[in-house]
């Protein structure tokens, strides 16, 4: 089993990248890997209460951990507008994860 960290920096309404990331994460999870999704920059908008947010919430229920960069959340005033299950973290935690996870992919 591999620990996989997917870092998403793109919003879900400009490109299909967030859908791709979610597909990769779900597939990896189904294959028994430990998967985390870290939302940063515009990627945080994927966790808004919305159609895409619902997809993330379903992924979280299947065991994918979802983290959000604190500055990305605050700068967009999204603190109370995110789906449940999102853990807000600071940049040092992202750095720890980058160093600790087996595989890190930045989108």
């Amino acid at each position, binding site marked *: 089993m591999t620990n996989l960290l997917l870092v998403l*920096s793109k919003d879900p309404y400009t490109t299909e990248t967030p859908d791709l990331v979610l597909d990769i994460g779900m597939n990896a999870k189904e294959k028994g890997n430990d998967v985390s999704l870290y939302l*940063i*920059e*515009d990627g945080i908008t994927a966790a808004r209460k919305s159609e895409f947010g619902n997809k993330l919430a379903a992924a979280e229920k299947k065991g994918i951990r979802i983290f959000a960069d604190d*500055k*990305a959340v605050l700068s967009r005033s999204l603190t109370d507008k995110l789906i449940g299950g999102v853990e807000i973290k600071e*940049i*040092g935690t*992202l*750095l*720890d994860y*980058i*160093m600790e996870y087996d595989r*890190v992919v*930045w989108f």
Partner: protein
Amino acid sequence: MTGKQLTIVSINGPYRDEGVFTMIRLAHAAKEKGINVNFFNYLDATLIAHKEQAPKEFPPIETIFGTIVKKGIKKPKADAIACIKCTDARGVTKQQTEGVIIGGLYDLGEWTGESDKTILIG
């Protein structure tokens, strides 16, 4: 985590998104944690360290990045390398800020081999 080494490869230029700021935030966090950081500026990211940027509405990226490189996240010979083919193509080889060395993909290969982790921000 002291003594670990992280290589950050950037491919995007400044002022189009927050990528450069994220890279700088990671660098500061790395310094606090004692992690050595290598910056490999590739493709449009070779514009990050281009001297004499004068944006009207944004902080000048070269100054911020240059401060990190000059202070030295890592004490060895090079903290930051800009890809020579990329700088030549953009006409910025001789205008890189102090502390940025002109190099190439072989250098990235060496850094990747030496580092505990290499990430690409793009």
